[in-house]
C-alpha cells in the first residue's frame, strides 16, 4: 500500500493484490528501474548461483575415495624392535606327562586313573607287526577305535620305545613334539601351525612385550580319531525383530 506522498516507482510490487474491499492495485509493468538498471542485481544473483554450484561440484569431486594418511612413510616397523628380547612361546600339550601310557579303569596311587607304562607288557610280548590293525587286538587296547585313514598301529608306535612316538624313518620323537610326527603327512597344517595360522594361540601378538602359548596337534585332534569334533555353537544373536531364517531360497 503506497503512501500517496511517496515518490512514485514503476516497480511492480510483488505483493500488490486485489482483495475484497481493498484499495487500487497497480498492475502495469513499465519496466522501469529494474529493467533500466537491468543486469547488475541479476548478475549478482547469477554469480551467487554459479559460486554455489561450483563449490558443490568441487567439494563433491573432492569427496572421492581419499587416501589414508601416509601410514607407511611415517610408521615403518623397525627391525631393531624385533631384536629386542623376545618372550618365549610355550607349547602346551594337553594332559600328558610327556610320555605315553595305557589308561586303565583303576585308580592309581595318586587317585587318578592309572596309566600303565607301555614297557610293562611290551618288553615281554613279541613286537607287533607294523601292519597290526587295531581290530585285531585281542587284549588291552581293545576299546581303541582308529579312524585315521589307512594308518595302522605301527604307523606311529613301535619298538623299542613304546612310550614315545616313532617317525616313519624309525626315529623316536617325544609326545611333546607330536607335530613332527603329524607333519610327516600333514605338512601344510604343520607349516600353517608353525606360522600361527592353525591351532590358535593365547597371549601376545608382540613377543617383545609378552609370552605366547601354543598347543600341540593332539590338544584338539585325538590322534586315533583326529576329525575335529563338532560342537553346539554358542547362542546366536538375539537382535530386535530378527527371527530364525526361513528356508525359502531364490530360484
Amino acid at each position: 500500500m503506497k503512501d500517496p506522498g511517496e515518490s512514485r516507482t514503476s516497480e511492480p510490487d510483488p505483493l500488490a493484490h486485489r482483495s475484497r474491499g481493498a484499495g487500487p492495485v497497480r498492475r502495469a509493468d513499465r519496466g522501469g528501474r529494474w529493467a533500466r538498471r537491468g543486469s547488475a542485481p541479476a548478475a549478482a544473483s547469477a554469480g551467487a548461483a554459479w559460486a554455489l554450484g561450483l563449490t558443490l561440484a568441487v567439494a563433491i569431486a573432492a569427496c572421492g575415495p581419499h587416501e589414508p594418511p601416509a601410514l607407511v612413510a611415517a610408521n615403518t616397523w623397525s627391525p631393531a624392535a624385533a631384536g629386542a628380547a623376545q618372550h618365549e612361546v610355550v607349547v602346551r600339550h594337553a594332559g600328558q606327562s610327556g610320555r605315553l601310557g595305557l589308561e586303565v579303569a583303576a585308580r592309581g596311587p595318586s587317585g587318578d586313573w592309572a596309566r600303565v607304562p607301555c614297557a610293562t607288557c611290551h618288553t615281554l610280548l613279541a613286537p607287533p607287526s607294523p601292519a597290526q590293525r587295531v581290530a585285531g587286538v585281542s587284549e588291552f587296547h581293545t576299546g581303541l577305535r582308529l579312524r585315521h585313514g589307512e594308518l595302522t598301529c605301527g604307523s606311529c608306535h613301535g619298538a623299542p620305545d613304546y612310550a614315545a612316538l616313532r617317525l616313519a624313518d624309525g626315529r623316536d620323537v617325544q609326545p611333546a613334539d607330536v607335530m613332527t610326527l603329524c607333519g610327516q603327512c600333514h605338512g601344510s597344517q604343520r607349516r600353517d601351525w608353525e606360522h600361527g595360522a592353525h591351532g590358535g594361540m593365547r597371549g601376545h601378538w608382540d613377543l617383545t612385550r609378552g609370552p605366547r602359548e601354543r598347543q600341540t596337534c593332539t590338544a584338539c585332534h585325538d590322534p586315533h580319531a583326529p576329525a575335529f569334533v563338532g560342537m553346539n555353537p554358542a547362542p546366536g544373536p538375539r537382535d530386535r525383530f530378527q527371527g530364525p531364517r526361513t528356508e525359502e531360497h531364490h530360484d
Partner: protein
Amino acid sequence: MNPTKPTPVHATPHRVSYPAFLWRLASLATDGKLPFYAWMTLLTALTLVGANAWAHQVAGGMHVTGMSDHVSWGLYIANFTFMVGVAAGGVLMVIPAYLYRDKKMHDVVIFGELVAVAAIVMALAFVVVDLGRPDRFWHMLPGIGRFNWPVSMLTWDVIVLNGYLFLNLHILGYLLYTRFLGKPPDPRWYKPFVILSIVWAISIHTVTAFLYSGLGGRPFWNTALLAPRFLASAFVSGPAFLILMLYAIRRFTPFKVEDGPIHTLVKIVRVTAILNVFLLLSEVFTAFYTGGTHSASATYLFFGLHGHDALVPWIWTAIALNVTAAILFLGRRALTHPLVLGAACVMTFVGVWIEKGMGLITPAFVPSTMHELVEYAPSLAEWKITVGIWALGLMVLTVAIKVAIPVLTGQVTYTGAPAPARADAPEPAAAAARAEEAGMSR
C-alpha cells in the same frame, strides 16, 4: 484502507517500526475466530503428545522405536526426506514468477515460501528427533564443535537446510515488512535472494539425495538417478500441496486467489508427475532386468523377499495413486473442476509421501548389507512423534498464513505513531480511548 493520513513512514526509524511489526504479527497470530482457536488447540495438543513421546525417547533410549541395527533409519528420516522435497517444491512457484515474469504468480509466490518455511522447520525437527543424543547438538556447530565439512554430506545438508530457512525467512520478512510499512520493496533486497532461492531449493533436495546416493554399501540408493527422482517428486508434492493450500486460503480467508496461479501449477505438475513415474520405471527396469543380489532391495519392495512382504501393498498403492493422479492432472477437468484437481493433489501427495518416505528409506536396509532380512514397522512412539511434528508444521503454516494475509491485503499496516517524546505526540488519554475502542471492536 487508511482513513487517517499516516505519518510518513520514512521518518520512523526501523528500531521503532520493526518491533511494532513483530508485535503486530504476534497479535495477529493469536487472534481469530472459533474455528481458528479450535484448529490451533488441536494442533497444540498433538504437538504436546509428540513432545512427550520424544522426551520419553530421549530419556529411555531409542529402543522405543521400531528401528534396529539392521534397519537403523525409519519413519523420522522418511518424513525428513519427504519434507525436504515439499520445501523444495514450495519455491517452485518462484520460477515462473521471476524467471518467466508471470505476473499472476507474484500474488501467490509468498505462499510457496511460507510452505517452504514450515516444511523446513518440520524437516529439521525430524532430524533432531532421530538423533540418539540431541543434547550433543552443539557438536555439529562449526567452530564450536567439529564440523566434518565438506566430506560428510550431512554437514552439507545442515548448511543448505538452515540457509534455505533463513533465505526464505528473509524474503518473507522483508516483503511483509515493506508491505506493512506501505513502502514498495527495494528489489536489491529481495530479487537476488529470490533467484538464489531457486538454485538453493534445487540444492537442498540434491544434497539430501546425495546423502543416500553416495553410500556404496546400499545398492538400492547407490544410483545416479536418485537426485533426479527426488527433484521430480519434490516438484510434484510441493505444488500439489500448494494447490490444496491455495484452495484452503480461497475458502477460509479474505485473500482472493485467482485461477491463473493454480493453472500454472497444474501445468507444471502435469510434466513433473509424468517425469516422476518415468524415473521410477527407469529404476524398476534397471533393477529387475539385471537381477541379482544388487536388486534384492527392489525385489523386497515390489514383490517381497523370502516371504517378507510388508512393504508390497504400500508401494503398489503409491504407484496407483501417482499414476492415477498423473492421468487426472493431464485431463482437461483438472483445470475446470476443483474437486478433480483436489483429489489428484491429495492422491499424489500421499503417493509421493509413501514412495519417497518409507518406500525409499526402508528398502535400502532390507536386506541388510550382509543380506539379512529384518523388517521394520514404526512403533507407537514413532507415530506420536511424527504426528506431533506434522502438527507443529501445520501450526507454523497456519500462523504464517494468518499473519501474512492481513499484511498482504493491506488491511494491516504501520501508521507510524511517533515516539511519545515528540512534540506532536497525541495525548495519552486520546490514545487510550482509541485503543479501548479498537480493542472492544474485535
